[in-house]
């Protein structure tokens, strides 16, 4: 289906990033029972962690080499170009989102929800709303992974510069910033509520930086940890414990089974709770333990749709934000029956794969020798 991957490309990164994109999409459709399939119900961490970590890893891998070979300016400029693309995509998605809210607010005459509609009054000042969108202060509900990504990429030249010279210092600095967010509540503010970003960039940069650190300096560490049976056993025990804990959130009644001191939910997702972080890292270690880089099934046709999506993650992620809103709109406006939930979920995933295939095709056009006939 696609060209043979180059020797260095780690298909696991593409595969699991693709998987996290599918999960994020399914989780972001409101009232979607398909979200029972995604990992967030079976442990502390969820698809967002996978996505951010792999994004950090890949960014460091790709731009790190560029920075070594072509210097700080060239690599930095490339990274900022990427951040700019993300920013433009974000503005585009926000316009669609605001249009949807405006449509509802404009045609709303039902007195039953008079109180709830107060929340849409901010639309009466479009000049402010638009400015706040540009300033990243008005974020699409439930989808601010994208602005997080923008901020991370915008500062990534500096992170990468440091990581390449003194990875340990870089990681320590990242942990310090996380602590300021987790314990001190440092965060960006949102319009109109003044609340912080759900994906607090000061906290979530830690995972991105850990990803970058792994790509640059962590290879040996990962090898040792991955091959240690003790470590893997501990990880598995932690994952099983987390799973058992998570099952109690499936029903409010079950939460009562736990003794008071064990009731840890909800874990702080905005501030990246250490329990979530540990859960993700354990999951990642067990995964690299089980799935070697040259695992056969990664080249099987069945894995290709996921790998494709992971390879074009920016485009696919943006589409998925748009799709999850559209899907929510369809479920609210037409029918939210279970078959509709299945339908919009499947349809969305197909659209994501379709876009990824299209992007690959575009890319292959650019790489073809000019004399080859384009069929």
């Amino acid at each position, binding site marked *: 289906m696609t060209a043979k991957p180059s020797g260095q490309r780690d298909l696991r990164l593409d595969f699991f990033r693709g998987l996290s994109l599918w999960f994020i999409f399914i989780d972001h459709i409101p009232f979607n029972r398909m979200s029972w399939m995604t990992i967030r119900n079976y442990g502390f961490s969820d698809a967002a962690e996978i996505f951010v970590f792999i994004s950090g890893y890949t960014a460091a891998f790709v731009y790190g080499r560029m920075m070594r070979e072509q210097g700080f300016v060239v690599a930095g400029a490339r990274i900022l170009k990427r951040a700019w693309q993300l920013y433009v995509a974000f503005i585009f998605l926000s316009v669609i989102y605001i249009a949807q809210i405006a449509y509802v607010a404009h045609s709303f005459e039902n007195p039953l929800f008079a109180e*709830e509609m107060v929340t849409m009054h901010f639309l009466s000042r479009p000049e402010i709303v638009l400015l706040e969108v540009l300033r990243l202060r008005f974020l699409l*509900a439930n989808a601010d992974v994208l602005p997080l990504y923008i901020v991370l990429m915008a500062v990534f030249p500096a992170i990468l510069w440091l990581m390449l010279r003194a990875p340990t210092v870089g990681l320590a600095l990242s942990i310090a910033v996380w602590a300021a967010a987790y314990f001190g509540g440092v965060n960006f503010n949102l319009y109109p509520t003044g609340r912080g970003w759900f994906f607090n960039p000061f906290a979530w940069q830690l995972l991105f930086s850990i990803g970058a650190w792994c790509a640059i300096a962590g290879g040996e560490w990962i090898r040792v940890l991955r091959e240690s049976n003790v470590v893997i056993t501990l990880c598995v025990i932690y994952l099983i414990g987390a799973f058992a804990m998570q099952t109690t959130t499936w029903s409010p009644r079950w939460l009562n089974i736990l003794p008071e001191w064990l009731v840890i939910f909800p874990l702080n997702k905005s501030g990246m709770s250490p329990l979530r972080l540990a859960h993700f890292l354990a999951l990642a270690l067990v995964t690299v333990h089980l799935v070697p880089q040259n695992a056969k099934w990664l080249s099987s046709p069945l894995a290709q749709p996921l790998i494709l999506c992971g390879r074009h993650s920016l485009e696919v992620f943006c589409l998925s934000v748009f799709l999850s809103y559209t899907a929510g709109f369809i479920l609210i406006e037409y029918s939210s*029956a279970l078959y509709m939930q299945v339908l919009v979920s499947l349809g969305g995933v197909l659209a994501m794969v379709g876009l990824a295939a299209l992007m690959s095709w575009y890319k292959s056009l650019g790489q073809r020798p000019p004399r080859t006939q384009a069929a």
Partner: protein
Amino acid sequence: MTGTKVSIRMVAAAAAVAALLEPARANEACYVPPFLVEPHGALHRVAEAAKRDKQLSIVIVSGSPSQVGGTKGRRSYPSYLEAALKKRLPEIDVRIDIRVKTRRPASDLLTLLPAIAEEAKPSLVIWQIGTVDTLLQTDVGAFTRTLEKGVAAVAERGADAILLDMQYSPRTDRLLLDYSPYLDTIRDIADTAKVPLFDRYEIMRYWNVAGTFDLTSLKDDGLYEKIHTCIGELLADFILRGAGMKESKGIGG
């Protein structure tokens, strides 16, 4: 599929009503599965006041005027609740007072509670909560403490309490507002303090899924009256069951 499951349930409910030969039309139209309107916690004061003093004084505290009678020319659930209670308890003097602090969060309503308990001496305080705090995005920790204090304040002054959570509004829910942290808090407090929670959110969500009412309607097409009638009816039975004055194994109504 859900659709079929629900309709079987609805048919069963309708059949049960018919079998009882009770022309409970409102109950039928307002059907929700019984567990959604089962009070977890007893209303001793209500039972006592009704039996001994033959009177029932209720105060409804709310930060959302349009939901408790602030909208001109519309009857809202407190009014329907009063009518339903009077119908069910003809020999008892039922009085309902409403205290509103327009679009003020729970912490502001909390300051009202002691005075209400002193002067109105109600047997029951229904604390309608959640909407304004979700809108204002109150700090969830502060919201939790407010609720705990409020529930304790009512109990201290010898009245029963019922928590009544926000409406389920499919459009604003998730599109702009995330109710879940506030809902979870309300449910937690109700659970730990053994205060009956009238879970309006789940009830309305059920109606929307079951197709009883289309809550996505944009128009002013009588939905307001229908929902408030049903909430009033269900709440009346909820109170009576909490006070042990009605069988628990009803068919939801």
